[in-house]
């Protein structure tokens, strides 16, 4: 089933990482708008996710924790991951946020094994941080074989879509509705 927390994760909706550069976020937004052209509900969901991320980045509704890492984040958002890396290497104390940002630098460079190791460490140190969990979850899904946009479908993350309910979810929902109905004395689906 689609978890409510997943549906509210704007990064997951756009299929990007929390520290993807602004350009990457815009690329993802544009490609999804093209892919779901004509589907008003999905288009508004995508637009909402994009606006929410851009709001956070402009210092809007949610405050990004500042532990001396705000400049690193700014560099990442501008796509300057080498500069971000140099800054990180100059910071002696390796907090959870350090590992998360190091993982983001590695991910941006394409050093995926090191990215996963760093994200895992960040989540071990701060298990309830939603940002770190979003990044780790994104990579864990791909570790399990998930590929975004797969027209052949993938049983571990729904049928190749970035969000929405699968046929299994609809069927489960109907069976549950039928059970509830029968408990109340009715029978929504006579054959079940």
């Amino acid at each position, binding site marked *: 089933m689609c978890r409510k927390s997943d549906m509210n994760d704007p990064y997951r909706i756009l*299929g*990007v990482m929390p520290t993807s550069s602004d*350009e990457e976020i815009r*690329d*993802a937004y*544009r*490609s999804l708008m*093209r*892919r779901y052209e004509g589907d008003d509900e999905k288009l508004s969901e995508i637009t909402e996710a994009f606006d929410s991320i851009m709001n956070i980045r402009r210092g809007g509704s949610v405050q990004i924790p500042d532990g001396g890492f705000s400049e690193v984040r700014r560099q990442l958002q501008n796509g300057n991951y080498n500069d971000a890396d140099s800054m990180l290497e100059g910071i002696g104390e390796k907090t959870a946020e350090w590992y998360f940002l190091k993982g983001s630098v*590695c*991910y941006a460079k*394409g*050093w*995926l*094994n*090191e*990215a*996963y190791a760093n994200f895992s460490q960040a989540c071990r140190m701060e298990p309830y941080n939603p940002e770190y969990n979003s990044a780790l979850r994104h*990579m864990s*899904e*791909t*570790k*399990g*074989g*998930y*590929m*975004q*946009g*797969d*027209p*052949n479908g993938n049983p571990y993350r729904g049928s190749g879509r970035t969000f929405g309910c699968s046929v299994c979810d609809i069927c489960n929902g109907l069976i549950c509705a039928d059970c509830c109905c029968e408990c109340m004395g009715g029978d929504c689906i006579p054959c079940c």
Partner: protein
Amino acid sequence: MFGYVKPFKPHMRICEYETYKAVYCGLCKILGREYGFVSRMTLSYDFAFLGLMALALNDSPAVVGPQRCIAHPWRKTSCLRSSDGLAYTAAAAEILIYNKVKDDLDDRRFLAKLFPWFMLKLTKKAYKKAAELYPGLAAYTAEQMSRQAKLEKDNCKSIDRASEPSSNILAEIAAGLSEKEEQKRILRRFGYLLGRFVYIADAFDDVEKDFRAGGFNPLVIGNPTINDLNLPEIQRRTGDSVNFTLGALADSYVQLEIKRFKPIIDNIVYLGLKNVFYDLIRKKEENEDIE
């Protein structure tokens, strides 16, 4: 290093396979016409894929017609007649192959040097012509190949670092497939990850051979003895690396503006690549059974 980017035929429609073959044939023809007979022998599925991408991302006309093929001269086959998109792919193929042969020559010893030495002589003229057309690409490829050689000489044990130069080469080649700046950025990432997949698949394919020969392979764990390569653990770790790579590849692929041949390219990206890796695993399991 070549032949890991190919379609998964069982899930391909016949008409799609015919189109794929027509692009392959078209590339072969251009290679023969522009770079000579020898260059046709160096054609691989990987370059057919790049050619397909070039055609998919651009609007240049792609005319298919029956032509005679050197592989089966007794009948005509569907062949892509001519397209600007394939000219770049052909040049990139020549640059990459020449550099790869040069690298092989440096790696091998004594009599084993004979074949790459011979191939280098045969491919040099074609390389010079391609390098004149795309000097930036030629220089960058040579620079990255040097970096690759140095990493291997230093026995780099990180797959991420060891695969980087080869990935950079394919990133640079892929960036040239579109004229649009926005698409170039996404193509660079796509090409990097595709190059990374090819590097890892090639390293996995050769892991036992490299180990026995005392050669470099970044997938070998620690310093094992001759009887204790720990192939199951190598396979598990490599599987994870491959999955990370393909997942990130898909993230960039969905952002590309594929104007045509999407079902064929989807087949290669979503089915072909992972099945190439499964085939490598199967081959190793069969070899173990024989032993």
